[in-house]
């Protein structure tokens, strides 16, 4: 079967709608942006009865069927930005527990060493354990109360340009079948012509990617680097972990050649959030991050915690950890980029929600000025860039600007650099450490020991015992992911000959391993040079974007499937 990929239909008439501001993505950054914008407009309207600004033409696009359904994180919330956005928010927000206890461990295969002192970036007193899904749902209801419309079930499929200016967003075409033909329920995507477009799509946003490439925004920056977080939510017998108890681990099952670690957060009602973040710059293409989490759970320390418990939800998502030097310009002619799409995440603290919120608020302030002046050119929106640089976002990220790059040559070098950076305000051995895109660290099979060497224990798919550990499909079932089946594949592979002729031989088809949702599969096909052919199960996708990031040939582009499809991260 030939694969047919999704693309916006051409030669059709599309309904147009004028808008003042379109925010693409209803996560913490997008919602905070909408809320702050509404506050500013309310203040303005109260003061200027003669020049009222309307909120009617401010829209948030969210590809999930319901608000918050695609939001996934640990999650710990640093309340700093929320206190600025909604003073006293603690009284009404769904916060599951205040952090009560914290510890960092280094794991060996069977043992563990507790860090005598919790490293400062991982000190979490004052933060809250939250479900990002419930938190964003709550934030979204606040936005809806203001009168701003959230279009759930609508994805941004393309940016609209006029020369070098972004003039709007095209939403996804609905009712298109596997062959890219219109079905009887076909509804063309809308062209939302907007004065200001704010990209809040999360990690590796698909419109953000288009924008970065069109205007060459990555030029002169470090390449963005990423991790993949695989998470399970568990219900455990009472008394195993206190609400608000927070643990981090380093080491096992990863070796010194991979970057990553785990979190375990105690929430309320005996619910435990645990997950493993594997840096998407590991060398061995056979490594499988979902397997890494399964191995981690078998460590006696973790197995004891989970024994007799039940896994209730699963999810996976990538996160940007390139830090300050990898953030592209965040404002231009008609556009701004906020949150994880820009890379506002502190990888030393494993936290980005507070920065996403703060960046959304700052973008709202600039968008508000643009609406007042009726000018959204780069000259006006450029203020967002300056405001980020003079805000505490930069203060926080500047101190850890070289953190992830320090680990590029392994764990021990990383610890050395991190230690040094801590005493030099983030500088380390030089002001700016260069970086390498993660996929470039991947080695060909011929350069690796056939038996996996030191990594042997963590290669290949997880088997799963059905109690403590799970194979990928079983885990995937618990993500609740669902898509309209009859639609073109949204994993756009530029050239499948590379998959079938080269990759299978050179790297052993790592897509099958790094995808946490079994989307990619090599099936037997005697007509192919290597007897195998790439096959896709797009409706398994959990929208983590790892394939777009980690594929060694960079030939996969993740585009949003028909709006409404995707995981269901209720309670995650």
């Amino acid at each position, binding site marked *: 079967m030939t694969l047919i990929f999704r693309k916006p239909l051409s030669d059709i008439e599309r309904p147009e709608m004028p808008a003042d501001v379109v925010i693409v993505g209803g996560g913490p950054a997008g919602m905070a942006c909408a809320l702050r914008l509404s506050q500013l407009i309310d203040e303005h309207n109260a003061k200027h009865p003669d020049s009222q600004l309307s909120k009617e033409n401010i829209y948030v696009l969210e590809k999930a069927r319901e608000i918050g359904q695609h939001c996934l994180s640990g999650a710990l919330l640093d309340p700093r930005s929320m206190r600025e956005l909604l003073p006293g928010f603690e009284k009404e927000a769904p916060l599951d527990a205040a952090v009560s206890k914290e510890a960092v461990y280094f794991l060996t295969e069977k043992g563990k060493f507790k860090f005598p002192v919790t490293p400062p970036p991982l000190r979490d007193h004052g933060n809250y354990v939250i479900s990002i899904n419930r938190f964003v749902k709550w934030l979204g209801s606040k936005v809806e109360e203001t009168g701003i419309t959230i279009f759930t079930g609508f994805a941004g499929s393309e940016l609209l340009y006029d020369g070098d200016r972004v003039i709007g967003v095209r939403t996804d075409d609905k009712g298109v079948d596997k062959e890219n033909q219109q079905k009887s329920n076909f509804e063309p995507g809308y062209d939302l012509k907007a004065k200001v477009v704010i990209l809040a799509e999360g990690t590796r946003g698909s419109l953000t990617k288009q924008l970065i490439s069109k205007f060459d925004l990555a030029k002169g920056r470090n390449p963005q680097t990423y991790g993949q977080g695989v998470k399970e939510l568990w219900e455990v017998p009472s008394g195993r972990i206190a609400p608000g108890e927070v643990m981090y681990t380093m080491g096992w099952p990863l070796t010194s050649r991979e970057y990553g670690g785990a979190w375990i957060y105690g929430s309320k009602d005996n619910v435990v959030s645990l997950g493993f973040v594997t840096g998407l710059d590991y060398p061995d293409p056979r490594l499988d991050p979902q397997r890494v989490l399964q191995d981690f759970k078998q460590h006696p320390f973790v197995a004891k915690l989970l024994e007799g418990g039940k896994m209730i939800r699963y999810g996976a998502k990538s996160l940007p950890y390139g830090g300050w030097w990898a953030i592209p310009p965040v404002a231009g002619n008609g556009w701004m980029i906020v949150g994880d799409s820009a890379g506002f995440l502190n990888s030393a603290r494993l936290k980005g929600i507070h920065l996403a919120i703060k960046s959304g608020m700052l973008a709202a302030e600039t968008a508000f000025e643009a609406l007042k002046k009726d000018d959204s050119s780069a000259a006006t929106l450029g203020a967002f860039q300056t405001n980020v640089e003079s805000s505490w976002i930069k203060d926080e990220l500047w101190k850890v600007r070289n953190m992830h790059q320090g680990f590029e040559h392994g764990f021990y070098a990383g610890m050395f650099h991190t230690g040094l950076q801590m005493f030099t305000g983030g500088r380390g051995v030089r002001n700016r450490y260069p970086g390498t895109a993660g996929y470039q660290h991947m080695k060909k099979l011929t350069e690796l020991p056939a038996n996996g060497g030191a990594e042997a224990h963590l290669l290949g798919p997880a088997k799963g015992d059905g109690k403590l550990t799970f194979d990928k499909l079983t885990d995937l079932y618990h993500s609740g992911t669902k898509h309209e*089946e009859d639609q073109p594949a949204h994993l756009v592979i530029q050239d499948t000959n590379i998959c079938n002729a080269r990759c299978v031989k050179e790297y052993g088809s790592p897509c099958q391993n790094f995808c946490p949702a079994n989307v990619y599969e090599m099936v037997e096909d005697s007509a192919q040079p290597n007897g195998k052919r790439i096959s896709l199960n797009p*409706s398994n996708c959990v929208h983590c974007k790892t394939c777009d990031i980690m594929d060694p040939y960079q030939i996969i582009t993740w585009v949003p499937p028909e709006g409404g499809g995707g995981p269901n991260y209720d309670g995650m």
Partner: protein
Amino acid sequence: MAENILVVVEQREGKLNRVSWETLTAGQALAADTGWTLAAAVVGSGVAGFANEIAGKKVSKVYAVESAKLEPYTPDAFVAALKQFLASHPAKLVLMPHTYQVRDFVPKLATAMGRAAISDCIGYKKEGDRLLFTRQMFQGKLAADVSFTSDAPWFVTFQNGAYRGDKVEVGAAAAPVETVNVDIADGVVRNKPHEVFKEAKQAVDLTQAEIIVAVGRGIKEQKNIDIAKQLAEAMGGELAASRPICDSGWLPMDRQIGSSGQTVAPKLYLALGISGAIQHIVGMKGARTIIAVNKDSEAPIFEIADYAVVGNLFDIVPPLIEEVKKAKAGA
């Protein structure tokens, strides 16, 4: 131009589409609000009966627009007929139900006349002298009021359910009926309709099957499906599959069992080369007896199987077919 409203009701294959009453209700409401006259038309061949039926409702006049070339329905003939009719009987506002048939010809009619159509409306508003028609956008999240800036006739179609068909007002006396014969020249109708067919809603209802033989990836190739089919036939059961088989197009989607397919609970479920991912199991775990054949002794399907056969299905199925046939012949 006369300020009037024309409702074009829909008939197809000798039946009046009931949605027509809804459009007539909308027309009556518009007529009451604007003070414009309301007429109705029915287009086809031998449609006087429908015209008389409509004449019982509160309308000023009913036209039967007739031509032998209007049966069976073709978009070319309908466009020609209505264009001609509207030339001799001008109307300011033309209302129709938003049916498949109307969707088929209205864009062509409006374009042929150089006019605009506002389709799939859920209501209207009168603001001063302006008529606004309400359409849904973003899957009903927003409603847009749209008005005409072009010359009449204005074409408007109403969504199914936008008005109540049972609220259509009956007239004090039967309205006059006029037959208008339209002349559709040879060569105008380029469409050649074939016999009408109904797509089978579901060729097979697996939920009713007592015996199901299901194949999975272990079947390897499309041509091998045949042996499973033979087994199903021998046993008097239905053939089904796990998702990869239907994804590859080897069997139609309506034979897929599992979370994205059907959920079944037959008396006997025979799983051939199905590993038993949870996505499949949720669709068949209610089966009374499950027999699984799989090469991999650790396949999860064996955890729920009542009978587990570890082996190659290609070794097992052919003799099984023979045995079933023999047993059936014996019985």
